[in-house]
């Protein structure tokens, strides 16, 4: 399949004149990525609403089209044709620029993820650094959105979002640095190449990789402002955070950027820990590699929806406590475990050394984090 796609691209490029080949080649790489992920975004909004409905004992959207499959189309039409309201005292230019700028980094983040053997839009030497550098600019843009709205809720939401993103960027980067250390490269293509040949070679199948994967997933959820870390846009407290003063298509852009950011993080998690586009068993190699990638992608997105349907929103102090008291020390210990794994020969001895190290620190940090908190069943005086 990859060979077929590459052949098609080469064939089209052959037909084009010389001076068009460079832009056309990149266009042919960019267009599928953007269209595929925009399609997945539309589908995900529907699947998410259906899944959340089922989790909450209801049916979910089922009016537009068979089983509600056309719901994203209806939502999109509604968003586009809605009136675009800009507050009178808003900073017009910054207010206008923020949603547009926010989509750019999230789209750019997809350009370094390998989707198949030779299907990577750009193989950058410092690919993972590019990913995080681009992701880091989202904070500034969220600030722009919140500040320019001249709304207290928007400002509060933006400050919450920035505090949260900065805090969780640290464990996110630290947990992926372990992978970089073990693979010896910043290029995502090289990192995937290290994990060839069955799921026992994936990084998630090692003790440090498993812990790193969980840390990465948690931090990715927080980075993309998703439940249970959605306090920047907590509807019941501050309306919609930095998106409060946006309506119509601009709001849709924020929504799109949020989901695309989550997808990019998911793609990175697959690349770093789940063996990228590799099949779990060598005899399954005949299945095209992109299918494996998107299969893992679907599983992770389903997991995110499941988590969203289950966990309640954290409080601000709990959120910060989790990041600074638990996740950062834990990711530093993952470092040590990675180094131990490397020097203990990656065999049984390494397992024996690493597992108690990580388990022990998990138990210690977990109890330290929850110490002093009395968790008891809540008693309702009137509701029961």
């Amino acid at each position, binding site marked *: 399949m990859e060979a077929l796609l590459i052949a098609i691209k080469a064939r089209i490029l052959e037909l084009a004149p010389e001076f068009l080949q460079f832009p056309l080649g990149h266009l042919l790489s960019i267009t599928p990525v953007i269209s595929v992920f925009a399609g997945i975004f539309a589908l995900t909004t529907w699947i998410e609403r259906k899944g959340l409905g089922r989790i909450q004992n209801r*049916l979910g959207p*089922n009016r537009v089209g068979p089983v509600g499959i056309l719901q994203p189309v209806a939502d999109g039409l509604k968003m586009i044709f809605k009136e675009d309201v800009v507050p009178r005292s808003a900073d017009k230019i910054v207010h206008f620029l923020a949603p547009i700028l926010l989509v750019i980094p999230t789209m750019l983040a997809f350009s370094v993820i390998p989707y198949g053997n030779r299907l990577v839009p750009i193989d950058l030497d410092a690919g993972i650094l590019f990913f995080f550098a681009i992701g880091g600019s989202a904070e500034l843009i969220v600030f722009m959105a919140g500040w320019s709205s001249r709304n207290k809720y928007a400002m509060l939401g933006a400050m919450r979002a920035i505090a949260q993103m900065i805090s969780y960027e640290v464990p996110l980067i630290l947990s992926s640095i372990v992978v970089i250390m073990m693979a010896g490269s910043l290029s995502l293509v090289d990192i995937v190449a290290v994990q060839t040949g069955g799921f026992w070679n994936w990084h998630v199948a090692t003790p440090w990789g498993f812990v790193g994967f969980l840390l990465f997933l948690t931090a990715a959820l927080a980075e993309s402002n998703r439940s249970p870390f959605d306090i920047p846009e907590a509807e019941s407290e501050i309306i919609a955070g930095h998106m409060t003063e946006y309506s119509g298509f601009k709001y849709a852009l924020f929504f799109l950027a949020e989901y695309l950011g989550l997808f990019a993080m998911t793609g990175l998690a697959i690349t770093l820990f789940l063996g990228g586009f590799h099949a779990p068993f060598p005899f399954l190699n005949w299945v095209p590699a992109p299918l494996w990638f998107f299969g893992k992608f679907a599983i992770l997105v389903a997991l995110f929806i499941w988590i969203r*349907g*289950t966990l309640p929103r954290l409080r601000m102090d709990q959120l910060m406590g989790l990041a600074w008291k638990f996740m950062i020390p834990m990711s530093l210990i993952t470092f040590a475990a990675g180094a131990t794994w490397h020097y203990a020969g990656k065999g049984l001895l390494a397992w024996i050394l690493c597992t108690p190290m990580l388990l022990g620190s998990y*138990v210690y940090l977990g109890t330290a984090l929850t110490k002093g908190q009395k968790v008891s069943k809540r008693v309702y005086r009137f509701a029961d």
Partner: protein
Amino acid sequence: MLGTGIIKGMAQTAKNFVGSYSDPKYLTTVEYPEQRVPTKENNRNFPFLVFDGEEAMVGLRCVACQICEKECPPQCIYIEKDKNKKPDFVGKDQFQPAVFDIDISVCMSCQICVEVCPFDAIKMDTEFELSQTNRFDGLLINKHQLAKSNDYYRGIHPTEAAEIDAARAADVKKAAAKAAAKAKAEAEKKAKAAAEAAAKTEADAADTPES
């Protein structure tokens, strides 16, 4: 231990998700416009005006006393009294409201108007599908739209309506009895007066000299 609660919660939601496909116990909602849950008898929404008999504008029980207008906390009722008395359902002359409007965008369904009405003329409806395309006119309901027959009231709140009917019937009976008694007394008085008059005439006649 950190994390056990998360796993427990995830298991519960997974049970909900899978159960919603196999066990109807896990699906608590219905497909609203097609399927409906039967309404409870004590269900109440915006008020309406009760009339007796066939003609809505004739049989309105409301006598435009304006107590409900004064009592309404959000002041959503507007009443204008008719200048002239009109015969009502039983043919008795009564005041009637010339205008009786309720703004249901303001009404909060508190039922105070029903509590204070001395004539059982205003009652709570169960109708809830009142959405309109116009924010102002469509939600201001006038007396023609508000008037609903007593049979309708019996249909939506049978127990309550039966009580009210019994009370009203008792009232009517009492009033009839009173009226009958009064009529009887009147008749007796009349008869007496007539008798007296007759006696008087007789006496007069007797008094009158023959010549």
